[in-house]
């Protein structure tokens, strides 16, 4: 009814109702999804402050103040899962930044196109595997009875005693670091590699004319060009400091209780207390703690990115 006026004068921005309705129809399925998958659960964080009684339902269950948090923090679990989550993240960030850069630089040195493609294909392969499958691969090596290490590698060094990897904590920081890098190196390497091949060859030619050797070219051209990407990725992963890869920490150690002290992170703790112990109070308290600190960290990280390179900020 209003469209006849629209063409006459561009005086005021006119709402085209037909288009608006069509656009919101296109948006509807996604919005509905975000409503149920993200927004309604956001209000569910109040569960952390309630004593849930399934008979009464979530809304009618009585409030209990900070009781759930008191349990969580006084049990010592909060400290353990925070320590594990943060330390593993720090470890993964440091190694997961340096290592892929070295590999990306190495890949860039390879002139043979076919070899380069083959290496990329192979190294990216683990990235495509589910953590369940990864846990099978790890088990093939570490299994107590049939594992390759216990049966072939240790005897070769004259060690006859079998190591029960899934029962001893001391090995797991190394195993988890190794598996994490094994799975993600291809992905991270391609990120940096695509950056390196984007560097203008003129820089290198100029450097060569000036007599710079290969090492000088790498340290003075390649690495400085990667700096923005490195900083952005670093800050983003600092923002994710309170989150961990649930699959890595749940599947790869096979959720073995004997090694929880070095494998339990906030994510696996939330799962185990919810699904195995049915302790919804403590589980939601841990979840709330994670969401809240995570949110503050993401905001801080984003503010820092915005300062350093505004283009890479998320919002």
């Amino acid at each position, binding site marked *: 009814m209003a469209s006849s006026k629209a063409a006459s004068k561009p005086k005021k921005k006119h709402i085209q109702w037909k288009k608006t309705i069509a656009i919101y129809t296109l948006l509807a399925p996604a919005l509905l999804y*975000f409503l149920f998958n993200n927004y309604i659960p956001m209000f569910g964080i109040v569960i952390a402050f309630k004593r849930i009684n399934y008979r009464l339902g*979530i809304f009618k269950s009585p409030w209990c103040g900070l009781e759930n948090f008191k349990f969580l923090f006084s049990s010592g679990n909060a400290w353990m899962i925070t320590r594990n989550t943060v330390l593993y993240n720090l470890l993964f960030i440091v190694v997961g930044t340096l290592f892929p850069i070295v590999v990306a630089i190495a890949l860039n040195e390879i002139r043979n196109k076919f070899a380069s493609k083959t290496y990329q294909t192979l190294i990216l*392969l683990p990235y495509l595997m589910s*953590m369940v499958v990864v*846990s099978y691969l790890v088990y093939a090596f570490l299994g107590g009875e049939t594992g390759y290490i216990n049966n072939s590698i240790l005897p070769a060094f004259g060690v006859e005693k079998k190591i029960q990897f899934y029962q001893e904590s001391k090995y797991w920081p190394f195993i988890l670091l190794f598996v994490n890098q094994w799975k993600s190196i291809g992905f991270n390497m391609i*990120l940096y590699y695509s950056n390196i091949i984007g560097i203008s060859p003129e820089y290198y030619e100029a450097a060569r004319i000036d007599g710079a050797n290969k090492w000088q070219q790498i340290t003075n051209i390649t690495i400085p060009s990667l700096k923005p990407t490195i900083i952005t990725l670093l800050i983003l992963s600092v923002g994710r400091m309170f989150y961990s890869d649930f699959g890595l920490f749940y599947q790869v150690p096979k959720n073995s209780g004997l090694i929880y002290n070095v494998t339990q992170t906030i994510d696996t703790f939330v799962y185990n207390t919810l699904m195995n112990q049915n302790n919804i109070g403590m589980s939601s308290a841990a979840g709330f703690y994670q969401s809240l600190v995570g949110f503050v960290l993401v905001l801080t990280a984003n503010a820092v990115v915005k300062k350093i390179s505004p283009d890479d900020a998320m*919002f």
Partner: protein
Amino acid sequence: MNGIRSSEEKMYEFISHIIMIILSLCAFLPFWLLIAASFTEEHTAVREGYKFIPSQFSAAAYSYIFQQWAQIGRAYGVTLLVTLLGTVGSVLVIMMASYALTQKDVPGIGVVSFLIIFTMLFNGGIVPTYLVYNNFLHVKNTIFGLLLPGLFCSAFNVVLVRSYISSNIPSALIEAAEIDGAGQFRIFSKVIMPLSKPIIATIGLLNGVAYWNDWTNGLYYINDAKLYSIQQLLNEINNNIQYLSSNASSISGIDTSNIPSNTVRMAIAVVAILPILCLYPFFQKYFSKGITLGAVKG
């Protein structure tokens, strides 16, 4: 550039080859061990452990899988169906939403964009999400429990596709179609979709792999063995070594003491990754593209 390469450059290339060969072997050898383990004779596997070259070959594990195909094949079917429906559905919903968000002259679009991006920053966590899906939407033990939670539509994908559309499809083209009297649905299906093929391939592939590999939704929302996906089956076997024998006896009453469980579990894992192993080399370039695209706007 193509002149004489210095010996220094050759040395760097040589070292690089060594690094990449070591890494390639590290990436590939575990798969080799998995496949070799699945072809090992059961008693040999128990006695000598898994080996890269089994001292006694046997395909017994695979013939067991064929016997039990009712169960394993079903899980395979569930995975295929969920992957197919999930990929097609999610790509369509993501494309529609992303196109809509590029139409900035529609009132409220800025707010909607923010609301979608905000889901990347804050979430209610696992417990409320679980309760919404379980107690409110009742997806437990339905195919929706595998399709919807977490995987279906991510803000990250929407942001990715939105920036692809606004930087690759000229807005003049859309305006011209509007002037010609084409409605939004027509523009979406006749202009946007055909011109977005590369990003559809990338997003579709990444989501397809995510659906194929997913086991967490099964862990939370499925406990009916009829709806187990192949990944969840693997997970069940992992949690419960007796799973194979307990289920086999209930299904067919065969002698369960002879199940080659050490090799069968490896064989099932091989069957689960086979499609990815076979298809992946052909799609590798799309994956690399997807990774770099994501990096542009992360």
